[in-house]
């Protein structure tokens, strides 16, 4: 299957608040795609809809032309880090990955591979409830990489990482994209994205404001940060 994410006309209301108002964009493999916008612009809701956690009122989100819920072993197609706290605090990090591996028909050896890859090999047998935010982020990345998926969705993956962790994450994402995967990363760190992303989708008030190559934006506005601030001026997220 192709690793393209297609988001087409997503709409969603939470009570009186409009969260998504016709969100439409495409994420293609081969480079990191930045997903930026003010708080409350609809980034997390869009990511949750791609993996079927939230139901859109209208519109579709597909991966390689298929809905997430239609995939038989979904984590082999899409790896997602949406909420680093979505785990049972009393279960060890390794066991958290073990049951996920079981659900995707993956061998237990794969768990140790991703634990090593994310630098958690030493703490894998400790209860995940005791992990720092940075360690939880790494565990979330480990879970996302478990199925070696061609598509990766990461919501604010830099949160809570130490400087070394940020460098590690940047290199990892770049590497994954270079392996011809689609990598969609939501973040508020414009300098990180400027270094790392090839493409960027700027959203505000539940829809796409701009979708462009990072190089083009930097060329036009001098930096990604300036481009972001100019583009989202007046598009306050929280209403």
């Amino acid at each position, binding site marked *: 299957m192709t690793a393209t994410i297609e988001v087409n006309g997503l709409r969603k209301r939470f009570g009186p608040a409009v969260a998504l108002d016709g969100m439409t964009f495409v994420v293609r493999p081969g480079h990191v795609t930045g997903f930026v916008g003010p708080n409350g612009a609809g980034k997390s809701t869009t990511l949750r809809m791609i*993996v079927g*956690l939230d139901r859109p009122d209208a519109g579709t989100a597909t991966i390689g032309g298929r809905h997430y*819920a239609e995939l038989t072993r979904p984590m082999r197609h899409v790896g997602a880090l949406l909420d680093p706290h979505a785990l049972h605090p009393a*279960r*060890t990090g390794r066991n958290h990955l073990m*049951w996920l591996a079981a659900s995707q028909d993956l061998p237990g050896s794969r768990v140790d591979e991703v634990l090593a890859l994310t630098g958690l090999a030493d703490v894998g047998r400790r209860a995940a409830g005791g992990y720092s935010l940075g360690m939880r982020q790494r565990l979330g990345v480990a879970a996302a990489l478990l199925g070696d998926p061609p598509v990766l969705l990461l919501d604010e993956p830099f949160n809570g990482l130490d400087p070394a962790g940020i460098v590690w994450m940047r290199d990892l994402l770049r590497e994954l994209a270079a392996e011809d995967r689609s990598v969609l990363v939501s973040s508020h760190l414009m300098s990180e994205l400027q270094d790392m992303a090839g493409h960027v989708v700027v959203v505000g008030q539940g829809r796409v404001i701009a979708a462009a190559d990072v190089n083009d934006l930097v060329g036009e506005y001098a930096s990604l940060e300036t481009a972001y601030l100019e583009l989202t001026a007046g598009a306050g997220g929280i209403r």
Partner: protein
Amino acid sequence: MRAALRAEWAKLRTGPAGLAVPLLLAGLLAAAGAALGDRAIDPVQLRLLGVRLAQAAVAAAGVHLLAGEYGTGLIRTTLLAVPRRLHLLTAKAALLTAGVVPVAVLGVGVAVATLPPGAAMLRAAAGSVVYLILIGLLGLGTAAVVRSSAVATGIVLALLYLMPMILRMVPDDDWQRALYRLTPATAVQTLATTVDTAALPMGPWAALGVVAAWSAGALALGALTLCRRDA
């Protein structure tokens, strides 16, 4: 479906003793009936009184199996791994049943073991085991509807323990009788009865049918909620 089952099983195996504790407690409570002796008109019914406490633990196990994931947020990871929510609910129901059966059989078995066997006694014991399974599923279904473990537990316990008491306050006798037949609390008593069965409001299998309808209803409503609502 197989993957969903495997995931749930792995979760149970690796996880904190979330299901084992209430289920063991249920087995112990059911078995505790053995200590009640047999000085009663209906010794089988006396021995099976433990089932009425065990049902709370079984219901709690059912509630916890799903609502616990909402409590910790784990559900969001679970739905990434098993995005087909019906599969998830089915897997959890299957696993819960597999967990309840041995403790219910053992608990109820110990409770009635020293009584003289007979068709009525075996029927009461088997009925009680099936009843416990159905109550576990009722808990699971309720948890799928309301998600909060405390609220789900409250609803199920109210249904199990308070309905008869509340129904006594219904003024119209015909309504009272009709509603009384439709509560699970009536069923647990009906199932356990081996003496004077003719005086019961309904037969044991009909009673089991009532409970099954409650459980099926809760599971169906739960499945609907699970599929339609955001995680």
